[in-house]
């Protein structure tokens, strides 16, 4: 069949004419609408953002070239603090997601009854379909001063006064980890599912204890999943808005909240600069972790051979 197809293909090419030309350029009409739309909307948008950050042409009065929006970030320590808090939040959320996500993925791969595995899948997957606003609202209800968690703590007798769990950093972390955990679990699950028991048995036969087996065999083999999960969680956290904004109640300053406030103040030049800083941050982190992931993949390949 393949030989026949190739032969007829050559015949077609030799025949030439307008049909062959049409077939040769068939990808042009297929691509044209998407390319034009992507250029005219997305890429123009990115250009507009860049221009706006140095030349706020929609502002009142005659527009002029200004570096004020960028200067703010280079000079003012207050804004360095905001970048720092944003990155710190992402580090903490990623660390907790990993600490919870790895054992979760591992346990799911060990479930022997297909029905239970499906249920675990469903419970991890279904929250993604519920609006982030609804889930954040759920955490506000749970963690408030008169909420469930504080009621439980008081009832058990652990505390007398309600513990402040919302409108602070703690609340942001609890809710953010909840929202991003599936994005950590599923990539890890897809590599853990490919682990074969023979490697572990080989390690055990060679006298490795369980910790050594985990550190030298399981962990390196699952590292690609860990890295891609961490990548997603980290980049989604630095750019998240709804959950940090509602859970932080304006008490915790991060980049996305700064964009929102600049937009409310109709300070488009400043908002554009912050948006670009966020974009650069995300791109740099992605590039760095991609380099890391390539190394991990290479190692995983080597160990598998």
């Amino acid at each position, binding site marked *: *069949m393949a030989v*026949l*197809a190739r032969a*007829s293909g050559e015949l077609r090419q030799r025949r030439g004419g307008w049909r062959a030309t049409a077939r040769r350029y068939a*990808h042009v009409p*297929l*691509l044209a609408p*998407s390319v034009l*739309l*992507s250029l005219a*909307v*997305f890429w123009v*948008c990115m250009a507009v*953002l860049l221009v706006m950050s140095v030349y706020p042409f*929609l502002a009142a009065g005659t527009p002029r070239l200004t570096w004020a929006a960028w200067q703010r970030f280079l000079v003012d320590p207050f804004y360095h603090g905001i970048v720092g808090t944003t990155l710190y939040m992402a580090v903490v959320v990623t660390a907790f997601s990993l600490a919870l996500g790895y*054992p*979760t993925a591992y*346990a*799911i791969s*060990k479930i022997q*009854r297909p*029905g239970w595995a*499906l249920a*675990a*899948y*469903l*419970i991890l997957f279904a*929250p993604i*379909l*519920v*609006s*982030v*606003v*609804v*889930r954040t*609202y*759920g955490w*506000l*209800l*749970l963690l408030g001063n*008169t*909420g*469930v968690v504080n009621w439980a703590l008081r009832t058990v007798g652990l505390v007398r006064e309600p513990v402040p769990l919302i409108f602070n950093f703690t609340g942001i972390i609890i*809710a953010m980890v*909840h929202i991003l955990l599936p*994005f950590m679990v*599923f*990539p890890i699950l897809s590599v853990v599912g490919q682990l074969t028991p023979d490697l572990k*048995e080989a390690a055990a036969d060679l006298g490795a204890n369980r910790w050594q087996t985990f550190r030298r065999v399981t962990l390196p083999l699952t590292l690609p999943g860990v890295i891609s999960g961490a990548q997603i969680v980290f*980049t*989604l956290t*630095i*750019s998240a*808005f*709804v959950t940090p904004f*509602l859970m932080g109640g304006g008490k915790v300053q991060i980049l*996305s909240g700064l*964009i929102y406030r600049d937009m409310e103040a109709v300070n488009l030049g400043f908002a554009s600069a912050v*948006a670009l800083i966020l974009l650069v941050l*995300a791109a740099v982190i992605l590039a760095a972790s991609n380099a890391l992931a390539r190394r991990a993949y290479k190692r995983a390949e080597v160990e598998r051979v």
Partner: protein
Amino acid sequence: MRPDVSVTPATGDRPPRRDPIRLVLFVVLGLVLVYMLAPIVFVLVFAFSSASYAIFPPPGYSVRWFMKLFGQEPLFRAAANSLIVALVATAASLVLGTTASLALVRYRFVGREVLRTLFLAPLIVPRIAFGVAMLIYAVLLRRFGGLDSLMLAHLMITLPFAISILSASLVSADRSLEEAAADLGATPLVTFWKVTLPQIRTGLAVSGFFAFIISWDQVETSLFLVKTDNMTLPVAMFYYLQRQQDPVIAALSTFLIALAVVVAVVAVVTVNPRDLQRVLSAGGR
């Protein structure tokens, strides 16, 4: 239901039941599942609370928040807007995603990799940053506040997902079948319709599903693009929560959660878990 057959591991070098590490793993899994369900369950509880603020245990139960919800005309308009925008963005990203992926996978031409990068770049741009850019763009084009700019904005976000999923399923589709159809005299359109399309059905379903979810639950990109009297549902809920926290949003959430559960069950049962994993691994949010 299929019969429940417990599989005993054949290796049998250590009894799996008494293993403390295994026990710890399953305790963590149990706690994580409780953690995942907790906020959703308590939203449902508070929808029926008689108090107007978040207090547990509720002083009593009532359905008055549902009554108040049914009087909130703006929320219903917002839901209709969300539905229209999500449907248009999904349909457009499926059509454009299929044609673009066909060209990227089935044709060799100069600049293919550049185009692929051009298409997938929106994936790394923070949603809120794109929202700022879209607002400026919409103001420049004097289309601020219209559903059309919302649809375009959502399409820019859903299209990269559609292209990456559909490209993957086109790569794994059997190409010799297409060639055979062409040799038997089928026109390219007929070949596509009768041979290619049925092979990428799953890819279409998965990317359509995620395009819809991403658009339906989009806050960051829509936030600046909507006018106060013409919102989308998640943005309307976001603003409502900023003003007041009475359980009207909880009452509304019961419907959204019910919808999500139905969709999740259908998705997990019909779609191959591997496909779900692949999309989630790509950061489908």
